[in-house]
């Protein structure tokens, strides 16, 4: 019976540790998918000249949080008003300075001719590349660490309880 309790406790703590590590994994996924989105719209802007809303609606992404952000942006377009509350509603993976930069990017999206819009996206992509590198380092460092910490804490609590 004790052994089962210990195993459940360790599993629970590991799960909590995994929960913390997900933040870093999801954040990395979000930024990676965001950069894929930038590539996709650059292509569309240059070749098919599709409308912004159509491109966003058609874009498929694996990041739920990015999906939310794009939907929020479409809602802002509908309202003809870009406000941070609507744009970042339920977005938890971004830091404040990143939110500001993304808000500025969306505020200028669609406002230039093809050449300047492409440059604008490329400039922004250079910034997100740095974010991606940092997020990848954090993911590699902290994601396994939190899982391991969860296991260790579980084992320690078990030892204390024993």
């Amino acid at each position, binding site marked *: 019976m004790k052994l089962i309790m210990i195993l459940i406790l360790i599993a629970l703590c590991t799960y909590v540790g995994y929960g913390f590590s997900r933040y870093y994994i999801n954040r990395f996924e979000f930024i990676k998918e965001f950069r894929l989105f930038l590539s996709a719209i650059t292509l569309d*802007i240059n070749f098919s*000249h*599709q*409308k*912004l*809303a159509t491109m966003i609606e058609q874009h498929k992404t694996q990041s739920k949080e990015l999906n939310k952000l794009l939907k929020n942006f479409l809602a802002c*377009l509908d309202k*003809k008003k870009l406000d941070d509350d609507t744009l970042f509603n339920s977005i938890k993976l971004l830091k404040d300075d990143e939110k500001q930069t993304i808000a500025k990017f969306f505020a200028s*999206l*669609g*406002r*230039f*001719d*093809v*050449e*300047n*819009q492409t440059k604008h996206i490329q400039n922004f992509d250079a910034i997100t590349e740095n974010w991606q590198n940092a997020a990848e380092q954090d993911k590699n460092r902290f994601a396994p660490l939190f899982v391991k910490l969860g296991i260790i804490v579980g084992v320690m609590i078990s030892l204390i309880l024993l």
Partner: protein
Amino acid sequence: MLGKILPLHIYKTVDEKIHYNSLNEIRMRQNEPVVVYLNGQPFYLGEKGVTSNQNHAIIATKQDIENVVFSASDFSIYSVNEQIKRGFLVVDGGVRIGICGNIVSENNQIKTITHFSSINIRIPHVVKNCSLSAFDAIVQNMTIRNTLVVSPPGCGKTTFIRDFIWQLSEKNYCLNILVLDERGEIGGGGLLNLGKFADVLSFSTKLQGFEHGIRALSPQLIVTDEIGSNQDIEALEYAANCGVNVMATVHAASVEDLKNKPGFDKLLKNKYFSRFVFLSNRQGPGTLEGIYNENLVRVSTWS
């Protein structure tokens, strides 16, 4: 349609205080009063409706103007830059937005227009039967004479040709009509009724449109708006050589103006057009001033 492009405070007044059918134009200039043209007459637009007192007028800001263009492009300026380069933008329903701002050029080619400083929103109207009084002078034995509709800007040329196309359909003149809609105003992106026999080729230059249209669609009549450049005149000559009749419009206030237009002397000398329909704004847009024959002799007068 206007709700999609106008700033909310301006749209609210236009929607609540102005009868849409009388609205011809809305002009917005940076830091200046908004002006609306109702039945061809200018008024300031105030919060409580139209006014002749400029102190009560709504002032258009730079942001308002930029937002109109941005909304009209469906938030995608890059997708309509070819139109913007030519100084206008057409939205669904044939609403045309003339744009003024800073022209960005490279190697003598316009790349785009930025920093929009003023806009002119022209609202198209369908005026049923407005071409009827000239119809019999233009149509003879199921054949359409080459016709030039002449007037200064804003006098109803496009409305006239739109109604003429519709009349042909209503009267069951089963002619293949190619509508060369360079700015998307005649057909309004499919939202304005052109009847049963019209094929609409939008946003092409005249010469390209004439060549492509005659080759691909075998029209008996080509209808197009606002000819003016030498290239346009070349396109007309191309159509004449192919045996296709043409109805076109041009900006001019009188026969003399028309004669003095560059390139038109050749068309007049060769008697390319056999009917000239003159319109004015005298009794509101679309006032028919007279119809002239190929020798520029008046064949009919009204009012």
